[in-house]
Structure formats: C-alpha cells, structure tokens
C-alpha cells in the first residue's frame, strides 16, 4: 500500500459481488417500502388530480358570467341598442344604463354602487364607424375603440372575452349599416382561421407540431423531476449511513467508489422500475385510447397517426436520461458526503440543483426555437445536454453529429464528475460536524 496510495489496485470489476450486494440492498429496501407504492401510484394520481382541480375551478368560474347584470354606458350614443342585443345573444344580462353616459369617468364607480347593475360597460365617444376603401386609413382608430368595464367584482377572462366579442359584432353591424349593407350576419363575417403545423421528418412522417411541443415540455419536466428526485434519494442514503455510523464498517469492507457506485446503480434501478411502471400504465392508456377512445380523440382534434414517436428517439431519450442520471447522481453523492445532516444538505445541494434548473428553464424557450445557435450549443454542453437534447429531439431534426458530440462530451464528464465526486466522497464520508468550505473541498479532491 504505502502512503496515501492503495485503493485502486486489486479487482477493478466495477460490478463485482460486493457492489452488487450494495445495489441489491439499495434496490430492495426502496422497492419494498410503502414509500415506493405511494410515489409510483400517488404522484401520477396527484398530477391528474391537480389538473382536474384547476380545470374544475376554471369551468365553475365561467358560470358566474350568467349572473352579471351589465349596464351599457354608450358615450358615442350610436351603438347601445346593438351592443345590448349582442350581449343578450350571449346570455349576458344587459340593458342600457340610461342617463349615465353624460357623467364623467370618475363618477362612474359611485353611480355603479348606487345602481342595480353589477357592471358598467363603457363605450368610448368616437367609434370610427366610417370605413374607407383605403387600407390603413382610419386615423387614430386603427387599433379600434378601447372599451372599459367598471365592475363590482372580479371579471374572469372568459367573461371579458365574451363581452369583447359581443361588442365587436355590434360594431361590425354598425359599420355595415353605415356603409349601407343590410342583412349580413356579423358573426359569419368575423369568422377567422386557425393555424396548425405538421412537421415532416426526414423519413417522411408527418407529426403535429403542437402535440410534439407538448411532449417536448413533458420530457423536460420529467428529466427535471427525475434528476432532482433520485439525486436527493442518493443524498439521503449517504447521510443515513454517515449519521448512523454504518459507513465505517462499509469502508472496512469495500472501496469508497464501490459503495458510491452501488448506491447510484441501486437507486437508478428503482427509478427505472418506476418509469417502467408508468410507461406500462401510459401504454395501456394509449391502447385503450386507440380502440375505445379514438373517436373522442379525433373529435378533440388529435390525429393519432401523427403521434407516432420513432423507436430511435425513445432509445435516445432513455440513453440521455440514464447518462444524465449518472452524471448528476455522482455529484449528488459527493455533495451529500460533505454534510452530516439533512438540514445542511439543502445548502450543499444548491449548486447541483441549479445545474438542473438552468436547462429546464432554457428548454422552455428552446422548445419554441429549437434550432437557434444557443439552442444547439446548450444541447451539446454536458450538464445541460441530457435535458435539452431530449427536448429538442421532439421539435427539431437534430443532425447526427450533434448527437455524437453531445454523447461523447457527456460520457467524458460522467467520468470526470465521478472522479471528483469520488474523491470528495472518500474524504467526506468519514467527516463529521462542520461542512467544508471551498478551499477544503479543493484539497480533498487534490489529495483524495
């Protein structure tokens, strides 16, 4: 052995029997626990539940519109009848607030409180009802008139939109009348278009851009959750062994990197098990959707034939997930070894968590613009590439060289991070009490 050496000689098989014993223990202890059941089935239920709750609150909120009693304050004196008629068409209680139009703006709140109305809809004096045949000539009314609501209560976005659309119809009607056109349905005139994008892959497959952007977001969110969640699990495991004094016996039985590796693989296997269960549930759901729910889906505008995700993409995403996990879990283990309790852990983990938050935030812009220079660079940088490249795969055609560069750099950094973390781990795991400062950490890494 001699001096500070030793450690690295002997069997170097990274998955030897001792490491496998650690893997097995970490895996079984977790998968058998109540926590695992709770997390595996509780988290998706929680997500669905939260989604349903917010949906419920939004739709319930929409019904309030019916009880509004709207007083139309028409300062132009030209469209009040039309506006009231259109509001009534949308089942909003409305009538002209007779005599109020003459009063200045600052008196309206007082008048509203004194009146039976819930809301005053103020229509400005100049409406620009004259339409010329020259485009762009409308003077100050190019933007259209600005309406104002003076309301006793909160007016939600759905109601605001309904009111705006109703007034627009009334204005179109008024302009048509002014131009001498009669009997046209303004709603038909206002009917617009919607735009959806179908991306064509190099294999000539069509896929819906909106749906794939949504998938891309889900992927970035999944990476973010998985990396932080399982990273913290490793940290807890490291701290448990430290605080319960188990680690010293472990250190007499195997090398620090073997213990660290066993933990990372064991916890990673728990994660893969969980993902496999979720994937199975989703797959069952999709199969069900294909048979029983296909009609409902196509009604909702989802074309299942444009949802096919190539197997190569799935393999790449899984590869990036596993490699990303290996990169970060080493850092988490190293950071965990520098502290003695969960309280200190939050501070020690901060730098690692920031390295996960940055690509998650960046991904939100990159999903919209996946081929800018920044997007490409960030998807190659080792700490960001797992999350960002995986997101880009769904919204851009990523050239093979970019994938190759990202993967090679990532592998390089996994070994580098494992080496640094391993040395911090080796020293830190036997330390108790005060957290090391940065110079001390550097010394640990240099002298291991």
């Amino acid at each position, binding site marked *: 052995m*001699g*001096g500070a050496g030793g450690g690295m*000689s002997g069997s170097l098989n990274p998955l030897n029997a001792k490491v496998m*014993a650690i893997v097995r223990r970490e895996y079984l202890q977790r998968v058998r626990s109540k926590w695992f059941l709770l997390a595996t089935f509780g988290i998706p239920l929680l997500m669905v539940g939260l989604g349903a709750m917010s949906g419920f609150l939004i739709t319930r909120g929409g019904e309030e519109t019916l009880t509004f009693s709207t007083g139309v304050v028409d300062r132009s004196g030209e469209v009040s009848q039309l506006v009231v008629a259109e509001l009534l068409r949308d089942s909003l209680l409305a009538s002209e607030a007779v005599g109020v139009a003459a009063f200045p703006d600052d008196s309206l709140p007082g008048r509203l409180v004194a009146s039976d109305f819930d809301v005053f809809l103020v229509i400005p004096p100049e409406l620009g009802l004259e339409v010329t045949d020259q485009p762009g000539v409308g003077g100050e009314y190019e933007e259209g008139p600005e309406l104002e609501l003076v309301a006793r209560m909160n007016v939600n976005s759905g109601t605001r939109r309904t009111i705006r659309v109703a007034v627009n119809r009334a204005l179109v009607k008024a302009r048509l009348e002014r131009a001498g056109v009669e009997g046209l349905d303004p709603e038909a005139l206002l009917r617009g278009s919607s735009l959806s994008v179908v991306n064509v892959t190099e294999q000539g497959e069509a896929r819906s851009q909106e749906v794939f952007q949504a998938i891309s977001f889900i992927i970035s969110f999944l990476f973010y959750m998985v990396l932080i969640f399982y990273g913290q699990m490793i940290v807890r495991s490291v701290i448990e062994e430290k605080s319960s*004094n*188990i680690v010293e016996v472990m250190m*007499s039985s195997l090398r620090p990197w073997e213990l660290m590796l066993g933990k990372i693989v064991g916890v990673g296997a728990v994660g893969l098990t969980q993902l496999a269960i979720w994937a199975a549930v989703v797959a069952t759901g999709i199969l069900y959707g294909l048979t029983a729910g296909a009609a409902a889906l196509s009604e909702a505008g989802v074309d299942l034939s444009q949802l096919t995700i190539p197997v190569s993409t799935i393999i790449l995403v899984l590869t990036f997930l596993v490699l990303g996990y290996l990169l970060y879990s080493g850092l988490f283990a190293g950071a965990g070894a520098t502290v003695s309790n969960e309280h200190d852990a939050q501070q020690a983990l901060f730098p690692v968590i920031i390295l996960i938050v940055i690509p998650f935030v960046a991904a939100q812009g990159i999903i919209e613009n996946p081929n800018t220079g920044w997007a490409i660079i960030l998807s190659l940088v080792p700490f960001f590439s797992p999350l960002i490249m995986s997101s880009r795969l769904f919204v851009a055609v990523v050239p093979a060289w970019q994938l190759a560069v990202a993967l090679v750099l990532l592998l390089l950094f996994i070994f580098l991070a494992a080496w640094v973390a391993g040395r911090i781990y080796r020293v830190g795991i*036997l330390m108790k009490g005060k957290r090391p400062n940065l110079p001390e950490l550097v010394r640990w890494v240099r002298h291991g």
Partner: protein
Amino acid sequence: MDTPAIRLSGIRKSFGHNLAVRDLDLTVPYGSIYGLLGPNGAGKTTIIRIILDILGADAGDVQVLGRDDLEEVRSRIGYLPEERGLYQKMKVVELLEFFGELKGMRRKEARQEALIGLERLGLADRADEKLETYSKGMQQKVQFLSTILHRPDLLILDEPFSGLDPLNVDLLKRMVLERQREGATILFSTHMIEDAERLCERVCMIAGATMVLDGTVADVKAASGRQEVAIAFEGSGSFLDAPGLVERVSDHGQYVEVRLSDGADPQDLLRRAVADGTRVSRFELIEPSLREIFIEKATKAGLEAESEEEVDVWAEPGAA
C-alpha cells in the same frame, strides 16, 4: 508463521497541523490478542483506520495478513468500530446476509451462518423482524454477529466494551476468545487498561502520537523494574527505615505498601523484619499494574502538557 498478522513500519499521519501518529512501528503476531492502549485522543482509531486502509498514511508501510494490498485480504478481516450502527429498517437476517456478502460470502452461506448465530444468541425467532424493533442490547449482539459472521482471521475491535451492558461485555469476550482459539488474531483498542490486562497477551501503549511501550504483558511488567511488597505486621515498623532498600512506604492501616529501591532484593527486607523481632502475618510481592507502568512511562517520556492531561483522565477508569 513468520510474517506477523499486522506489521506497521514508520507510519506517520497528520491532519492539518495536528500530528496524529508519529513514526509508528507495530507488529501483531499471528494468533495473539493484542491490545492497543492509550487515552482518548491518543490516535488509536487513526492507527486502526490506517490498518484498514480507510485512511491513507502520509508515510510508512502497512502489511496486513502478509499482504501489502489490503484488497486481497479485506474479506478475512472483521471490524467493530467504536461508533457502532446498523440499518434500522432492515430485517435482521437480511442485514446479516448483506454484511456477509460484503465480506465475500455467498448469500446462502451468509444466511445459514446468520441463522446459526442468531440461534446461539437466542434471537432465532425474531430473525425476520426489523432491527428497529430490537432493544439496544440485542442490537449490540447483532452487531457482534455481523463482525464475525464470515469467521475472520483478523478481528479488529475499536473500544469494543464501551457502551455495552455487563452481560454483553461477557458475551463479546466469549465470542472473541472463541475466535482466537480457532486461530484468529485479535487487535483491540481500549482506554481501559484493566480490560487489556485481563485479556491481552501483548500490549502496545500509545500516548501523544507515539508508542511508549510494546511487548507481552509479562515482559512489560518485568521490564518496568518495579517491585512493591504488601506487608502486614505487629510491631513498630522500624525495620522499614532502610535507605537503599526501601524507597517509599504508604500506610493503608491494616497493612503497608512498600516500594523497593531499584535492584533491591525483597528477601533482604523480610530478613530485616525478622531480625527486628516483628511478627509478620503477610508478606506479598505485588505486580505493578499496567496503569502504573503506563503513567510512569508516559511521564518519563517527558510528554507535552496536553498528553499529561490525558493521563489524568485515564486515572479514572470507566469514564468511557
């Protein structure tokens, strides 16, 4: 066997500016029970961690069970650290299986040994319960079992008796002696010299980062050159006034303890007493205790004030 179970030569280790071990040479023969003695903070745990390659030494060579590379012999070592602990949430039999596997046993084999061991400890019917349901004393038993499950050739125990209840102290001693009879070498550290004196064949005393004594217990005592005699008598005791023969007398009421001068023959003192006409009812040579020898050595070695303080602490046994 010619090579010793453990051989340390020229070991030096410091933490920052703190020198924890200074040029230590230490040899533990095969099959012996070897005591590593010293007050708290003397560096015993550091030495043990260096032997186990948990810590790297700054200088010097470590040879364990005849090998320079500890990896080759890890599975033949059992280690009970001073600060003990196990996974509370694991079933006891699986816990033992796990530690057996870490020592290179196959799982089946480890399970078998674990069940046999639990049976002997009277815990067989609770093998499938989680450790956290066990009492503290039972957890200590499980910890011993996990240390010797793989029948190690070298057993290293760091302050093994501290914090144990008396029943478990006896149990551990029995288990340790049993391992020794089967040929294992035992190295244990303690700050309680009385434990070492009862159990060990050889001792090594550490104080202030250096070794102050090393050898068999009998050698150490003989080499101390100290002789004391307990004498009970009727008479004036004027025979004790013999410069050159008697160095110091302490009166305990029923008897006196006489410290003889270096090289003096106790027979001379007995002769003087008889010639004086004293009736002697007890005349007994007292072996010096390791504690006394240590304190003398440590003081003679001119240790820094710091370690002398530790010696004082040591003068109160049982302050674990």
